[in-house]
């Protein structure tokens, strides 16, 4: 396959009248957006068969910039809205573009339940370890000791590992990369999009403005260096002790399985209901 140039992707998928984006220089959200569009492009999906959903936050602004049907909802609730979309029109493909605070704090309950139900949606998660849009408060993903405006002396709480949480809750596909894992990132999104049931691709994404600045990493390159230091590929992590893994973030593919999705289960349920009522054989 010919490698498409960025402007080809841009011209094909972005809404020109919505540009420029709201993203700061060095922000990773645009990069992940590009990966997602490249994955869709490589799959040859039509713009008319995909619905984008989001909550509130910098990352949640993404559906506004792409030329698809898009629902920009309330903080944390994207997956609850997505449940209505997917269940009322199972033939549509649904992408939820979400932030880490959006997903794991205010939206934590919706997140685990959408996974438990195995809702057929692909979550593209921007984990920037902070609340970007509101200016750098700590998030449920902020690592202990890192600073945010609401923990100026360094976070004192235990962070969530969202990918692990998704695996435990029953997701069909879970992967985590940094925004610099170009090929793996796109391939994972492609896999996730094709997967029936719940899929999650988490990206560690630089937010130099709200997060980096407060943690002595003012630029994207500084954040890249830090990601290199703290991430460990899953194959390597398997042979490491818990002590060695302390403070590290595992990246790679966490799970890939095929449990039946919610809409498939509901189809069967409808049949069962009609049979039990004697309406159908």
């Amino acid at each position, binding site marked *: 396959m010919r490698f498409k140039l960025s402007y080809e992707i841009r011209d094909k998928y972005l*809404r020109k*009248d*919505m540009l420029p984006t709201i993203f700061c220089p060095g922000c990773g959200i645009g990069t992940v957006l590009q990966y997602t569009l490249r994955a869709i492009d490589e799959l040859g999906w039509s*713009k*008319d*068969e995909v*619905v984008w*959903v989001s909550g509130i936050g910098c990352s949640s602004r993404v*559906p*506004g910039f792409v*030329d*698809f*049907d*898009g*629902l*920009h*909802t*309330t903080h944390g*609730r994207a997956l*609850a*809205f*997505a*449940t*209505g*979309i*997917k*269940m*009322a*029109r199972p*033939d*549509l493909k649904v992408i939820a573009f979400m932030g880490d605070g959006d997903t794991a704090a205010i939206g934590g*309950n*919706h997140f685990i*339940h959408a996974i438990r139900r195995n809702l057929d949606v692909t979550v593209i998660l921007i984990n920037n370890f902070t609340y970007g849009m509101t200016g750098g408060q700590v998030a449920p993903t902020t690592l202990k000791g890192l600073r945010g405006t609401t923990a100026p002396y360094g976070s004192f709480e235990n962070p969530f590992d969202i990918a692990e949480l998704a695996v435990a809750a029953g997701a069909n596909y879970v992967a985590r990369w940094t925004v610099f894992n170009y090929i793996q990132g796109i391939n994972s999104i492609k896999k996730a999009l094709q997967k029936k049931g719940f899929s999650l691709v988490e990206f560690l994404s630089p937010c130099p403005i709200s997060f980096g600045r407060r943690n002595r990493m003012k630029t994207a390159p500084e954040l890249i260096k830090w990601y290199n230091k703290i991430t460990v590929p899953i194959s390597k992590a398997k042979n490491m002790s818990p002590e060695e893994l302390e403070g590290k973030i595992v990246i790679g593919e966490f799970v890939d399985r095929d449990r039946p999705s919610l809409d498939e289960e*509901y189809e069967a*349920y*409808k049949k*069962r*209901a*009609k049979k039990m*009522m004697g*309406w159908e054989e």
Partner: protein
Amino acid sequence: MKYPFPVGKSDFIQGDEAIARAAILAGCRFYAGYPITPASEIFEAMALYMPLVDGVCIQMEDELASIAAIIGASWVGAKAMTATSGPGFSLMMENLGYAIMTETPIVVVDVQRSGPSTGQPTLAAQGDVMQAIWGTHGDHSLIVLTPATVQEAFDMTIRAFNLAEKYRTPVILLTDAEVGHMREKVDIPNPEDIELVYRKLPANEEEAKYPFGDIHGDLIPPMPIFGKGYRTYVTGLTHDEKGRPKTVDAEIHRKLIERIVNKIEKNKKDIIDYETFELDDAEVAIISYGIVARSAVRAVKMLRNEGIKAGLLKLNVVWPFDFEMIEKIAEQVHAIYVPEMNLGQLYHLVKEGANGKARVELIPKIGGEVHTPHEIVREVKKCECGV
């Protein structure tokens, strides 16, 4: 089409059950909910019926999710409903505002119980009137219907869907534990005899480009539902006619919000519904809604027997509110009584409407019991005759 309940004849059923059946007949094919007394029976009936009519019924993790799910379903074209009671209704407020801002047709049933907080789960109240009208933040409008009988619960559910579709807005069916749980005879019409309204869809690509504009001059934009190739962007942020976020432009915000409010306000006459009883020559008016209005009818008869010329205005819609009509009534009578199962909610609107032209007295009752006719009579007589 085959229905999982008898149609074209009457049945003896609960109010909650009537709401579920009416919803199905109104074309509702998506229900999302979370159990709560006294609304659970609506959910349970939907759970029985929906799979049989190829609809979706799903138990969400909470009420925030329930209303979110029905908004999502509405954007892909489904007529959708959720039902709850006080605490759950409170949780829905943020997304109710989202539905108003994005002009999403949905029906939300609130079977009122007594609050605040978990209050009296099994007992009726009318304490959510203000919450239904003003519960979500910001300037807005919506439609609130108030049934008094099981038949009305049935009929108004169908009307709720029709109004939601017609005005592209959330409609609240504000009932209570008394109506929800009581059993009465209900005439269920033949489906062919029910008049159904469907949302206006864009006639062409050009119209679809303005999902939040006023292209027909009737303040109600056609709704380009998802999955039809229009590629619409919908946001709860202040947006322009094309749906693009424009959050700091005062003019765009004013235009959008005024249109959302005016599409209800300017169609008040079409939406508002009420009944009068002995009001023509009345010197004293009772204004009531929901379950209490039934006691009020009897109270009017009793007052007339005792020589007090009383009349009743029973409101079937409490929002939008006809302030002008109340003023006219206030010009005719010297006193208006508002019996309510709360410490004064609709009372404030009536007082504003009366505009000082008549005395307005609240007859409050809380604790879970409906006013008896005698109680209303006693309070009116206390003021009228000093008894």
